[in-house]
């Protein structure tokens, strides 16, 4: 049984999260630069008194596929290492993964990740 963990985090926390996951033996991840907003909303920039609201804030999206048994451990590690306590720290989603295939060898399932 495989699960995918998608975590949206603050960009400057990426290194901390990566190191924390390395410590528990997570060997691979996919990282994307994304933009979005949640409760943090956007931020304001003011040019000569003209206020412009920037709705979409840069974030990092991590995607990690692991065995279902490790999900809790990984999610906890990400939460701890991405945490600042301020609004905008991000979200973590856990999804079902139907199948995984390693392109080079054709291995499937847990052997592929």
């Amino acid at each position, binding site marked *: 049984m495989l699960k995918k963990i998608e975590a949206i985090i603050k960009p400057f926390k990426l290194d901390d999260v990566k190191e924390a996951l390395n410590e528990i033996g997570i060997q691979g991840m996919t990282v994307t630069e994304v933009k979005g907003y949640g409760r943090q909303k956007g931020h304001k*920039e*003011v*040019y*000569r*008194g*003209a206020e*412009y*609201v*920037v709705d979409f804030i840069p974030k990092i999206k991590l995607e990690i596929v692991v065995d279902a048994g490790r999900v809790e451990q990984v999610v906890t590690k990400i939460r701890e290492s991405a945490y600042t306590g301020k609004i905008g720290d991000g979200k973590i989603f856990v999804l079902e993964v139907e199948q995984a295939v390693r392109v080079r060898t054709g291995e499937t399932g847990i052997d592929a990740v």
Partner: protein
Amino acid sequence: MKRFRILTVAMLLALPLSPAWAADGLNSGDTAWMIVSTALVMMMTPAGLALFYGGMSRYKNLLNTLAMTFVAYCLTSVIWVLWGYSLAFGPDVGGIIGGLDFLFLSGITPASLEGTIPTNVFALFQMTFACITVALVLGSIVDRMKFASWIVFTVLWVTFIYTPIAHWVWGKGWMATMGALDYAGGTVVHINAGVAGLVLSLVLGKRIGYGKEAMFPSSIALTALGAALLWFGWFGFNAGSALAADGIAGSAFLVTNTSAAAAALAWMFTEWSVTKKPTVLGIASGVVAGLVAITPAAGFVGVGASIGIGIAAGGLGFFSVSTLKHKLGYDDSLDAFGVHGMCGTLGALATGLFADPAVNAAGTGLFFGNPKQLLVQIISILATAAFTAIGTLVLVYVTKALTGGLRVGEENEIMGLDGTVHGERAFDLE
């Protein structure tokens, strides 16, 4: 070496006999300084102002802003030698305009003198002022004016608005006779350009999306560099307006720098306390506000007054662009009126207050016992603003008729003028 020394001695002995060394003759120190000053002021338009404005315009209109600045400089350069100089500095006709005696600079030879410098240098120095004045107007209308309309407007405006006002103040016209003090162009350059920009922006209308969508400056770094080049060039503008390398030039030099620095700090601290961020755009804008305000006062006031003028200009500039503009609801894209019109007016009034006869015997302000000077300054401000407002309005409609409308098409405005007008892009960012 020895032969050189003998030659020098022989030349020194011949000095009293040479007509070039008569009291009003050519002074090589003055001439050298004025050639340098002219080059400094030249740089203010296609380098200083172009980058200052270009960086503030949106990324899709940066090149269009540069093109309009360059073309304003080039057109005015040609107009000036054909008829502009004569209209501004030809023999006075009724205090209103110069005569046509110097059309095509006729009768001016390399030996002709204006004071202690060659007339050619004087004409070119004055030309650089005409160039930057019309280019300043651009700040009110970037992002939306047709390039052809800008060209026609530039030709008409330099001819019919700039040259008369320059004549009134510096060409022995009625304002000079009245005793108005405008050392380097508070009325002629800044109030004139600011009010003209306001009129043009009101006729053109607001940019599509103004007040609703974000209009980010393309590069504050370019704007800051432009402000620094303007500051550097302004030493030629103000200290050069002494038309001599003398003590008054040195005094103008000092107060120019002091006012710019004080205004930059005042703008920055005001903005920091009001909107919580000390922006680079604010610091750069403050520099220009301080330079504008000290311009009419430069050769007349002492260093203490220049600090006060700078601080007032920084505060007033910030208030004009961040509060006044939004309350009144006009779209002066880059604040030609807010900075140049408002701070130029402040400077012209301050000259009437702080002009110190100990700095320059030619000017005495209210605080030195001449209350009438303030009245003269107010008349010169109102007359300049009224003439340029009405005259510019007429020329804007003439331009509109000649070029079939003033404004670019809606699609081009949204796509951006760099691509649709010039077929280029300022950056390759994908």
